[in-house]
């Protein structure tokens, strides 16, 4: 176990290093990304541009620039080129909104997916299954930005059932916090409910034909016990795996569209702004933030996998 964690930490560092180098290089080769030219304005003379470059340290060789930036990220000193504000602090400020959105949506999508997947599998081929199949396909097919816009338009502007977005901190008012997040939670969850319920359904249908399910029946368990303790329990393993990966993805930037449409002051919204203004420091920090969570939850999934399926052992050879 200790060896496993050590290996994963090493791998995580390598992945983050590779990602940061790639982002850094891409930024330096894309056209029109020279921050000095953008900051100095449209008709700046070469002397001004040179001065801006010197101020930002952009006259130094690329490896030096890269190392400086990394050092600033990890000491929390990084400031953006365009707005001259502390990037790490701004990301930190976006974390509550992003986590509120992602955790709430995750709870919603897991509960609904398990419920729908279970019902679909148990009533396979019958009306409930077909209705849920159609529903989940609709959910999978709807683009997030379109769904978010439609919900906002109909439920916030037309009917005025929900607020039109923006984030209220949990510490300020738990009621308002949830009220403002209902539509974003739903928007973000829909796609995953669709996918997960389909995955769970097919896993459960496979598991129902397993010998150990027949054994469970032969033991005289009730059909409910058989379905929940044996069929559902074993079918959850791949779903949990998916969940870990997707949750990391959502926290690490996958919620960018939802945050943008609902104007939630989270990391995603901040990332969107950084991309629009081609501002390297916030972009770099956001990418590192996202990559960290994706790799982190990947590791969590691997550990969880061994807990859920005892046949899998971490970092040691399987017994013969």
């Amino acid at each position, binding site marked *: 176990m200790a060896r496993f964690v050590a290996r994963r930490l090493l791998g995580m560092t390598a992945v983050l290093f590779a990602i940061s180098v790639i982002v850094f290089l891409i930024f330096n080769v894309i056209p029109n990304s020279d921050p000095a030219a953008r900051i100095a304005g449209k008709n700046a003379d070469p002397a001004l541009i040179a001065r801006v470059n010197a101020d930002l340290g952009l006259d130094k060789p690329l490896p030096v620039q890269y190392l400086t930036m990394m050092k600033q990220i990890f000491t929390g000193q990084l400031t953006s080129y365009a707005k001259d504000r502390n990037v790490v602090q701004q990301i930190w400020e976006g974390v509550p909104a992003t986590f509120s959105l992602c955790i709430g949506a995750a709870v919603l999508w897991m509960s609904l997916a398990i419920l729908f997947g279970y019902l679909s599998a148990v009533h396979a081929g019958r009306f409930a299954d077909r209705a849920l199949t159609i529903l989940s396909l609709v959910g999978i097919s709807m683009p997030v930005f379109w769904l978010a816009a439609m919900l906002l338009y109909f439920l916030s502007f037309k009917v005025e059932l929900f607020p039109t977005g923006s984030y209220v901190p949990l510490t300020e008012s738990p009621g308002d916090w949830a009220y403002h997040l209902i539509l974003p939670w739903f928007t973000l969850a829909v796609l995953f409910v669709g996918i997960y319920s389909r995955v769970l359904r097919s896993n459960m249908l496979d598991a129902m034909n397993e010998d150990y399910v027949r054994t469970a029946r032969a*033991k*005289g368990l009730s059909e409910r016990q058989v379905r929940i303790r*044996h069929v559902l329990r*074993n079918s959850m393993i791949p779903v949990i795996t998916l969940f870990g990966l997707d949750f990391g993805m959502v926290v690490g930037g996958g919620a960018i569209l939802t945050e943008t449409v609902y104007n939630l002051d989270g990391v995603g919204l901040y990332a969107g702004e950084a991309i629009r203004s081609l501002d390297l420091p916030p972009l770099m920090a956001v990418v590192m933030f996202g990559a960290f969570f994706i790799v982190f939850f990947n590791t969590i999934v691997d550990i969880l996998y061994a807990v859920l399926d*005892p*046949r899998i052992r971490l970092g040691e050879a399987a017994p013969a």
Partner: protein
Amino acid sequence: MSAIMTVEDLRVSFATEDGVVKAVDGVSFELAAGEVLAIVGESGCGKSVTAQTLTGLTRASNARITGSVNYRGREINGLTDNQLRDVRGEQIAMVFQDPMCALNPVYRVGDQITEMIRAHRDVSKKEAKAKAIELLRSVGIPNADRRVRLYPHEFSGGMRQRVMIAMALALEPDVLIADEPTTALDVTIQAQILQLIDRLNRERDLAVIIITHDLGVVAEIADRVLVMYAGQVVEDATLDEIFYEPKHPYTWGLLGSLARLDQPRTTRLTQISGAPPSLLAPPAGCRFAPRCSHVFDKCTELPPLEARTGGTHLDRCWLDPDIKAHRGSERVAHHG
């Protein structure tokens, strides 16, 4: 011995895309208390479906089950799923072929046994666990108090099958149905498992229905033998009658394909030519007729014979009794 289970004209068919498969087609037999009954036949002859239908395990939306399975005066085919739970495990317990697949890989074996106990008895977790350890010990698992916490994949094949048997015994059933319990095991382990079943049969007066395609297993353990072919019973007799006075050409074929140590090494094993018929549209008359070297017009024109000789020996072949006796004794003389 009095019968505790009577099966009469049991028919199980499954609707499939290709048509209706008549997996079991008119099977009748009796099981006496404390008896070991072997159901023998090749793959797909309906022996497993028969066994599983005895506790309603073949119930499915595409299955049609008719006939009667009477267990101590209770009609199992007529029970609701809920009523069936009292029979399953409590009165009739089952052991399956491959214990790796038949045990749930994600639960500790102890938990799988206590789950069964607690589904039927109002006992605490602690009591159930003590019972599980005692059960594991009684089927010959060493260090049972430690092994109760292990997962199925941490056991060897033979030990896993012992776990399955321990679990089956948890509620002290009267009947144990063992569906090819030794097929997935190697030969020395097979013998140990059979000895265990034999011991339980004698010590607990446990009636056993053992499903197998291995006549070696039958010879070792059975009191009576039911030979099945293509969903039907072709012969039902005591162990000695099957081995020394077999009446059905299919039984002759099965015995001829059995390697025996008491034969000269030059004796060639015989095989039954051809393949079993499709259960979608089985042949009229005797189903073995297309593969039988003794076939004559009666075999395909009439339904199979239904005769009981010597009171209990069920014979379903139209061949002349003298020919059968001759063939039977020829086998014995030849192999003797």
